[in-house]
């Protein structure tokens, strides 16, 4: 296409043909998104999208402004100003006391070392906290306990009224990069290469007092932990910059399984460790991890890997899913997977069972059961055996969404309402099912006709 444009008249020859990235033509039958709305408002990179309820979401980014949007109409509901620097974390906090009606709050943290709680119904600032010594990098709401945690250079516990309940001592300068809630009033915090487990104990004297205690430090990762996600009540997963993925037991915090060398390929399975390390860290970094009950989906470098928790191995992968790093992935209910990347595209994948025996088996070097302490070769063989008697899966590209002109930072799947993507090009795009929208418009039209009294139905 480009060549045709530049060459002016020669046969169009897609650049994609040469690149290893899988491409899909313009014929995308399974891609439902045939309509889009561009939501303009941000003046800098939009990094966060967070769902408030069924039809509202908030967006925030480097311009320090938070926008509330209607996901159906794309209408801008509120523009929340309060932060002077970029937003570093955002979390929805819908609280329902027995007495009060449900209020939707969002908590935002910014590089200006403040945290603000906003009321989504009125668009007003509820309260602002500015007693932090460092930037809050992550926020987690523990609905069960009706408290929320902020993670920076230390971990603070707050109640709904924004009273500081307790805090840890200064941990590191780098600060907590991720927080996840674990059972038994515990939280896991990723601090550099370490994973620290904290436990919240109700204090003996006060009614609403909490103490936070460091329970355990896990130092299994070789590099900074980049993603931390809870799979279910029993497991959580961490991923690091060098491509290690570790599955943890959420109750006793032991390592269940681990997977590394995601970047590796069957082409050079026996390359030396030194060479592996010389790879650009971005190539192997676990950018984002998501999961359903069965599998963990990891965005590693440019690729996407599906790791089955039961089989404890990678069952499907797409080594170069995008032209550039995958920044966010999400599993849809219908066996589909959406990924977005720095290359500005969003792709929709479907996990399919391979009918015949695989022509190109999943690289064996991927699999390593640390727990059994076996040698690499044995593991490879075991893996090969498994492949033979278990169904093979692969990720099929069923559609791509091209709209953003810069890295797509994140997306939010709204089910029927569509998909919201945010990007470094300052835009948010709402992707919608054209068919559905069209029939909705018809419905609205006939409603309006009926209102105007112009509708006559003759059956």
């Amino acid at each position, binding site marked *: 296409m480009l060549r045709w*444009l530049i060459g002016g008249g020669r046969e169009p020859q897609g650049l994609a043909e040469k690149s290893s990235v899988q491409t899909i033509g313009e*014929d*995308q*039958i399974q891609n439902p998104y045939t309509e889009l709305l*561009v939501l303009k408002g941000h003046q800098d990179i939009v990094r966060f999208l967070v769902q408030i309820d069924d039809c509202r979401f908030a967006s925030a980014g480097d311009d320090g402004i938070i926008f509330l949007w209607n996901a159906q109409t*794309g209408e801008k509901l509120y523009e929340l100003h309060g932060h002077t620097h970029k937003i570093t974390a955002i979390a929805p906090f819908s609280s329902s006391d027995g007495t009060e009606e449900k209020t939707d709050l969002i908590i935002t943290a910014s590089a200006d070392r403040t945290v603000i709680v906003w009321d989504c119904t009125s668009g007003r600032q509820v309260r602002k906290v500015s007693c932090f010594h460092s930037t809050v990098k992550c926020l987690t709401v523990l609905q069960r306990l009706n408290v929320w945690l902020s993670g920076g250079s230390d971990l603070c516990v707050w109640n709904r009224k924004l009273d500081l309940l307790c805090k840890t001592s200064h941990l590191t300068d780098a600060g907590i990069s991720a927080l996840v809630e674990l059972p038994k009033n515990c939280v896991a915090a990723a601090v550099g290469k370490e994973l620290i487990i904290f436990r919240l104990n109700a204090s003996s004297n006060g009614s609403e007092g909490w103490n936070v205690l460091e329970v355990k430090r896990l130092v299994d990762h070789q590099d900074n932990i980049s993603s931390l996600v809870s799979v279910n009540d029993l497991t959580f997963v961490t991923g690091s910059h060098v491509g290690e993925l570790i599955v943890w037991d959420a109750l006793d915090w032991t390592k269940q399984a681990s997977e590394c060398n995601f970047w590796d390929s069957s082409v050079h399975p026996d390359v030396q460790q030194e060479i592996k390390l010389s790879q650009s860290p971005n190539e192997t970094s676990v950018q984002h991890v998501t999961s359903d009950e069965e599998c963990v989906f990891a965005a590693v470098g440019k690729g996407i890997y599906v790791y089955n928790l039961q089989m404890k191995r990678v069952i499907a992968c797409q080594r170069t899913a995008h032209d550039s790093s995958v920044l966010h992935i999400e599993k849809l209910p219908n066996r589909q997977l959406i990924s977005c990347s720095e290359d500005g595209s969003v792709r929709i994948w479907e996990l399919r069972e391979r009918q015949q025996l695989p022509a190109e088996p999943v690289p064996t070097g991927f699999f390593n059961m640390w727990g059994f302490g076996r040698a690499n070769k044995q593991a490879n063989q075991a893996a090969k055996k498994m492949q033979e008697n278990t169904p093979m899966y692969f990720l099929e590209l069923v559609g791509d969404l091209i709209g953003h002109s810069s890295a797509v930072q994140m997306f939010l799947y709204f089910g029927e309402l569509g998909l919201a993507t945010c990007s470094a090009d300052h835009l948010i795009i709402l992707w919608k099912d054209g068919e559905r929208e069209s*029939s909705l418009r018809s419905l*609205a039209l006939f409603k*309006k006709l009926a209102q105007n009294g112009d509708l006559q139905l003759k059956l």
Partner: protein
Amino acid sequence: MISAPDVVAFTREEELEDDLYREPPLPEEYSVPLFPFAGQGANPWAKVAGSKFTRDFILISEFSEQVGPQPLLTIPDDAKVSGTFDLNYFSLRIMSVDYQASFVGHPPGSAYPKLNFVEDSKVVLGDSKEGAFAYVHHLTLYDLEARGFVRPFCMAYISADEHKIMQQFQELSAEFSKASECLKTGNRKAFANELEKKLKDLDYTRTVLHNETEQQKKANDKGYYTTQAIEKANELASVEKSIIEHQDLLRQIRSYPYRKLKESEFHPYEPECALDRADVGSDQDPTVSDPAEPGETHLYSHMPSYTPKLIKAKSAKCFDKKLKTLKELCDVYFFTQTLDQLHHIERTFRGDVCYLLTEQISRSLLKQQSVTNFLFEDVSFLDEKPPEKQYRGCQGLGQDAIDDKCLEESLAPKVVISLGSYKSSVECVPIKMEQEMEDSEEPKMSESTMSEHQENLDYLDADIKGSISSGESIEVLGTEKSGSGLTKSESQASLPVIPSPQAGRSKVGSRRTVSEDSIEVLSTCPSESLIPEDFKASYPSAINEEPYVDDDERGLRFTPRLNPGVDDGQDDVSKQESLVQVDAACCIGKESPNFLEPLPELGQKPCEEDGVVRIPPQPYRPAEQGLRGGFPSHDGLSGGLLPYELDSRYLAGSREVSKSSLDECSDSTSYISSAASTCSDRTPSPAHLACAAGERHRKRAGQNALRFIRQYPFAHPAIYSLLSGRTLVVLGEDEAMVKKLVTALSIFVPNCGVYAKPVKHWVTSPLHLVDFQKWKLIGLQRTVSPAGVNVLHALSRYSRYLSILDADSKTLRCPLYKGTVVARLADHRTQIKRGSTYYMHVQSILTQLCSKAFLFTFCHHLHLPISEREPEESVVNRRMNFLKLQLGLANEDIKIVQYLAELLKLHYIQEPGQGGNPLLRFDYVPSFLYKI
């Protein structure tokens, strides 16, 4: 009806023809050369041969109390316009038929002078000697220094084409009413102002006189009054009387019936003006009589406060005094407003009548398509106030329904007019039909009006007689009332409506009306329609010998409007239908049966009452009147047949187009254009002010488009892209070439809203997604610089949303098109030569598409399930079947209609105030590369 037959001038071609057939040719020396100006390269079809002016113009005259009728100004203000035409003479003539009731003064039984708020009179005058025909609008302005406080004025639209005046009567009347209303509003303000000053003067004078009298009284202890003292006392008394009189006048001018102004069509002016009126209106309140109106203060804020002067005892009007100019009479603001309006009128009505008519037909048709017209038409000009006669066209056909007198009486509220003397003197101009005088007596007439009536009658009588005795006859060729008298006999005879005998007969009738040296009152105002219902009863329409039969009919005409809710819908429809039937028969003769079966393509709401659509376009009306013989002279002229021919042509043309033969279409359109060349007017016909520029643009766009479809074999997929909402980027190095292509293609771009077309002629920066939302046709610069590479990168990235036409290498990359609609739209073998013709062809096909889209959009069952349980698939099936079978769409044509339907939905749903997010719809379809 007409007095002595005159010699007929043989300057009209068709009459000559007739004579050639029937009579032996006249001797050479008696015949008049056919086209006296043919040698000068004039248009041989021009009918202006006899006229002494080159183009239509507007003349404002005054019947000055000092010098008699005199022309004040012409619009356009150019000596060349009137040429050798004798303005003085014509002013005299038009002012001599002022039928206005302009009586002001001391009516018997009233102590004070009384102002009349007189309706303007509207007449059509013809002067065959001068070859001039005029719509004349008489109005009266108030001037404190004038005799009877009134200054009669008139505005006349003068044209050489009688048909134009006759057929555009409604429009002219509406437009001139606006101008007149503006003048009068200004005048009332100025008059009130003047009265206030005068009152202050009088008050001051009274104080002075009073003081003097007191002093004299003191100084004089002789016990008797000196003559001086008596004189002073008399003077004082007269001043007091004068004060009371003037106060009364002020009260009267302020109590002007403003409710009339609330009628919508009297609001042609800016909010300023409206505000002003509102202010004035508030003065109606008797408790509030704030002498300095707020509106005034803002208008005259710079004016110093007035210092009263002493009024000399006998400062009677003297003839050496200079009367106020029109500008002074109406204050500058309103005067300029009026001039603007008159210029607007001039621009609107200049040019050939055919042109005006077609323009009006298409406008009215467009207006009916209120849901779809935004797609491909420039609807901005449709927003303008229509000339208020929407229903007359069709409902006038109620003419034959006779038993409506009682209807009228029950429906139209009888309003007793408080301003007693609306009754015009002129109702009884005793030109003829005096035997009918008795009938014209109105039961509502009050005592005073009766007497007035009589007086004025005498006055006018004398006036007219005077003019007759001067050797020149005034001929009242037709008024609406007298016309309706004729109608009864003639229209009944001609109910089967075969146009030719009808025309022939009326021609005979009209022959004698064309007199050598005469003013012909061709028509008077059918202007009840222009007046609010409640004023109608005593409206001074010029000649009212007839009993109000016509009025009654109008009462009926208004009925559906007055109580649409009361009427049973079914009944209404059938009534309308029958009306249409008659109308169709009247207007388009044999073709009418076809017309009654609306094609599915016509833009009609299937779910809504048929009546909405079946109302024929309004411009039929003039033609139909002519047919009914309302204006005997009408058919006698060459163009007499033109209107209905045009109409039938128009309709036939539209049908032909739907059967899509390009050649026929081009024929019919070229017919129109050739008809338009029988120009009465040597000025070009921009017809509508708003489209004047658009017209030129259309022509150019049409020409370019024509060239494009001939030059590029892949024009079809390109046009398909535009019609289906896929942005087309025209890429090229040469800005002029790209812009030309963009202009050419822009006529195929559907509008997304009522705003400007989504076309961007020239862009040099890389495109973004947002651009495709906003623009559907983009001209893009191709450069070799690094920036240019970015531009191309963006194009290739977003190629999914784009079709790309490379103007340099003549290639096109876009989805495949296999439909049929575009083939009809852009046939490269088309015989159409002219850009404007092609433009019209495109418009007609696009209109067809629009109506399909309309049908598709507004069929409930195509989009929503009939019952709750119906599965979605069956609805989808129904939808596709409808598109394929009912609308006859093939392949990609479906997508065009779907896209248009989506636009219709969006447009319809959208709340007025809300801009709405522009959304981008797209398909995942592969593109192909086309080369020459």
